[in-house]
């Protein structure tokens, strides 16, 4: 497409209203935005719902670095990736959601690798508490209520 060669700028608006001006080549690293641009259904400002300013800034930083260093050594990129992922520890899962939602494959891969490394040494019990807390709670309470229900009917 000719428009992507001209390096024109796009404005991304996060869910809390902050606007980021990014070159189009960087923005189209997100497949979702790329599709919007190619279908020409995007005006200058592209809303990015579900993603707040903090997370969007991080995603854009990641995309910029990857766009610049395409020709650079892969090892540089790897160290950047690991540093980036380490910095984003608190927002790790929000970042994954954003990367998945915006379809940024490189970022999603780096983040999933990080989660895998985090959980690989953990026990099953730990995993259940960390990730299935809510579901377990739901199962337990519904079973509990169900038990009362059965007991009462047998009375």
């Amino acid at each position, binding site marked *: 497409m000719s428009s992507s060669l001209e390096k024109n700028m796009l404005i991304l608006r996060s869910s809390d209203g902050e606007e980021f001006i990014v070159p189009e080549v960087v923005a189209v690293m997100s497949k979702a935005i790329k599709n919007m641009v190619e279908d020409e259904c995007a005006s200058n400002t592209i809303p990015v719902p579900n993603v707040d300013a903090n997370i969007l800034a991080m995603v854009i930083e990641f995309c910029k670095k990857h766009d610049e260093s395409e020709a650079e050594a892969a090892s540089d990129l790897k160290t950047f990736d690991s540093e980036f992922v380490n910095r984003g520890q608190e927002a790790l899962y929000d970042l994954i959601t954003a990367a998945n939602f915006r379809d940024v494959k490189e970022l999603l*891969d780096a983040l999933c690798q990080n*989660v895998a490394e985090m959980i690989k040494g953990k026990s099953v019990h730990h995993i259940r508490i960390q990730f*299935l807390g809510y579901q377990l709670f*739901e199962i337990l309470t519904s079973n509990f209520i169900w038990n009362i229900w059965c007991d009462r009917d047998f009375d």
Partner: protein
Amino acid sequence: MASSSVQRRQRRRLSVNTTANLTLTAAEKVIGDDDLLSRILIRLPAKPLFRFKTVSKRWCSLISDPYVLQRWIPPKSPSSFFLRRYSRFSHNIKFNHVSLNGLVKHNRSIAPLYLDFFDDRDLVIISKSCNGLMLCTSSWPGLDCCNHCRCYVLNPTTQQYSTIPRPVDGVSRPHSFHQLSI
């Protein structure tokens, strides 16, 4: 009687609804998505992956799913290696298996590997390895190695092996096996 049971049912539905109103944390949202969870799971090494089958029914069905397992990415760093032991007094070739995962926990992580199941076990060396499989060659100390050399593909985990058949064209070329990659 009927009305009271209806009331109870309503009460039950209500309480289930209140639990559903709890907000999910970001981690639970990510793990709750089958696609994202499988993306994470395929990056785990084999042992934790299969241990996590017991987390829940959903995890178990995802880990057992052939479509998920097909995309499994093997870990980049090796989890263990084999150390060849030399002895001045005998021609026997032995290997120690050194695990990098449980080195601190278990003192017995350096266990000898017994290649007992081969006929010519004392003379088997490992010539190549790939994806947990090993290409073993039986070496012969004499010069007539060409006639006796045999090649095996061995899975050290299950201790299953199969012998690679010799070429049928009459000329034995054991060194051609060394260029085999598995």
